[in-house]
């Protein structure tokens, strides 16, 4: 029911802080959009602008075609779930969930019906008489979701709704939120700094930093084809590794990356995109999982170094790897036994390399 469009939207606070810069974003009806970024990147401000809780300094915000810059929150058909849940402590669970409907003058029996229905779906129907203080964190989270659900809003806004939950609950709630989106058939805008949440939930992810959108795309786009080093570093665990070096001998069909003794022939698909950039300073990105130790065959794509830390993470292990003074982290199988100080050779999957301009940090590949 709601397509939400930002057109050149700016947000400046009175203290001069420029929270959001020239934001252009077209959120489709029924889309699940995740705003992802570090704290202070402007993602929550963006969400608050959709809700009407923050003024818009410049530009236009449209719901469908109507400009809503100046509509107060209670005139916008949106519901919101907060990180701290923000339940009304003096009201019972029933009244918490029904409050939005009561304020919109929905008849009492209709409120009763919708609250019980939502509580049933969320499996909190036995808690309706309790106060928020008598609930566990997970139950409060469900009440907060229920409060938004019963409104049947045009857009569902969530501000880091899972970050106060413990790890196991967070993963199960992720699945429930995804199911909720499927069942409600409405637009979701979800703010998080957790890459895993973003990758699992989103139809499209908007990566933000310093108030500027870095990239908008599907989870696959964002992970596989990051537009710049910020996006590349923000997703991935452990983070992507960078090796600074130069492009050598490119004639449009072959290209070679060199850093000191280390040199790779880059695949033709990459070389084709580099054009004539002989001597260009670049930053090579290798995702932690894009190395293989067992198949250290293909000469020219092998990096060698010393193991200087080993972090087992259950399913596999992170290997700290010293490449001529530069610390890299790779994810390798846990059945590979290593000792600190071992010399290791890892084969890099050249087709999955990322290449960025060293100064601007922008990708050279797409």
């Amino acid at each position, binding site marked *: 029911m709601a397509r939400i469009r930002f057109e050149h939207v700016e947000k400046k606070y009175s203290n001069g802080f420029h929270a959001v810069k020239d934001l252009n974003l077209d959120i489709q009806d029924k889309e699940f959009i995740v705003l992802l970024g570090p704290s202070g990147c402007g993602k929550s401000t963006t969400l*608050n602008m959709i809700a*009407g809780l923050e003024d818009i300094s410049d530009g236009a915000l449209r719901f469908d075609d109507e400009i809503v810059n100046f509509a107060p929150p*209670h005139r916008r058909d949106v519901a919101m779930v907060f990180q701290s849940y923000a339940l*009304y402590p003096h009201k019972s669970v029933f009244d918490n969930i029904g409050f939005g409907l009561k304020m919109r003058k929905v008849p009492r029996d209709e409120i009763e019906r919708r609250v019980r229905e939502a509580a049933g779906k969320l499996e909190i129907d036995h808690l309706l008489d309790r106060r928020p203080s008598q609930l566990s964190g997970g139950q409060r989270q469900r009440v907060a979701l229920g409060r938004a659900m019963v409104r049947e809003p045009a857009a569902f806004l969530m501000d880091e709704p899972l970050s106060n939950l413990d790890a196991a609950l967070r993963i199960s709630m992720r699945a429930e939120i995804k199911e909720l989106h499927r069942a409600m058939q409405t637009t979701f805008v979800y703010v998080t700094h957790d890459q895993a949440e973003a990758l699992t939930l989103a139809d499209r992810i908007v990566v933000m930093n310093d108030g500027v959108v870095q990239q908008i795309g599907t989870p696959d786009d964002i992970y596989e084809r990051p537009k710049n080093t910020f996006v590349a570093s923000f997703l991935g665990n452990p983070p992507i590794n960078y090796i600074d070096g130069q492009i050598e001998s490119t004639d449009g069909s072959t290209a070679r990356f060199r850093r000191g003794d280390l040199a790779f022939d880059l695949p033709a698909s990459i070389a084709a995109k580099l054009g004539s950039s002989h001597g260009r300073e670049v930053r090579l990105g290798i995702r932690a999982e894009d190395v293989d130790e067992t198949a250290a065959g293909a000469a020219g794509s092998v990096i060698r170094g010393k193991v200087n830390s080993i972090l087992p993470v259950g399913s596999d292990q992170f290997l700290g790897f010293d490449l001529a003074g530069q610390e890299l982290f790779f994810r390798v199988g846990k059945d590979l036994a290593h000792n600190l100080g071992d010399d290791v050779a890892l084969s890099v999957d050249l087709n999955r390399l990322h290449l960025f301009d060293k100064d601007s940090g922008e990708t050279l590949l797409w």
Partner: protein
Amino acid sequence: MATTERANLIDDRRRLALSHLTRNVVIFVSAIVLMLYVLAPVTWLVSSSFQTEAEIVSVPPHWIPENPTLMNFEAIFGATAEEEVTYETRSGQDPASGGYIPSTAGNLLPAMGNSLIVATLVVILNLLVGVPAAYALAKIRFLGRDASVYFILVTRVIPDIALVVPFFLVIRKLGLLDSLGSLVLTYLAVTVPFTVFILVQFFEGLPDELDKAARVDGCSRFQSLVRVFLPLSLPSLVAVILFTFLTSWNEFLLALMFTQTEASQTLPIVLAAFTSDFTISFSFINAAGVLAIVPPVVVAVIFERYIVSGLTAGAVKG
């Protein structure tokens, strides 16, 4: 070896028990001393209001009246403003006690009425002005917000005595001298900054997200204040009510300046006047004192049960 260790352990335990005992005794004795210090004057006030003038001056004093009498209270409720008490007729009205009735005895009850009216109005107006002001200062970001808070606070640190002359000029200009209006107006000027200060502190402590949740749920700013913030602020509202009521009830200096007749005189003024009459009847004054502490005590008892902590528990993850 084992036996020595055991003996040492027992010794240690005894020393510990002894030090606990000593500490408890010290705390207990201090508590008793403090309690006497606080309660003795009030106890004497109440006790002596039931004594005759003769019994009051007996040595040693009778903490429990030997011949309790209600004469003092009868004298207060019997006195009327019309009844003129002169030097010649000053005694004999209280034959049992042999005490003297102050010439202004008849003003006591009307003054109490005045005090009640002024205090109640000041409380109500304080809430009407202070609550929205505090909400705005705490939850709405606007230019000059910090400056406003400081400005309001600064007015609070100016001593009343410095304000008396300017107040007097304003009140005279407004033609409010010797009226309850003068008191309500000036007491508001003194108490509203305090009210705003207390409530701003409290509202700032309530999470912003509660306000946001209420507004997304369909509340206007005002509805958010009334439906979400006020129910959660009961403890601080009660503190404000008690403070403003007591301040107005006890205020002396401004009342002395702006009131001249029984039309506007408040209780502290009339009570104080009893000590400067032809002669002084302590039993009568003490009975009047007992009456003067009744309304504040009643107000405190009514509102005390709302001063509960933990009302906001569970609003956000805690």
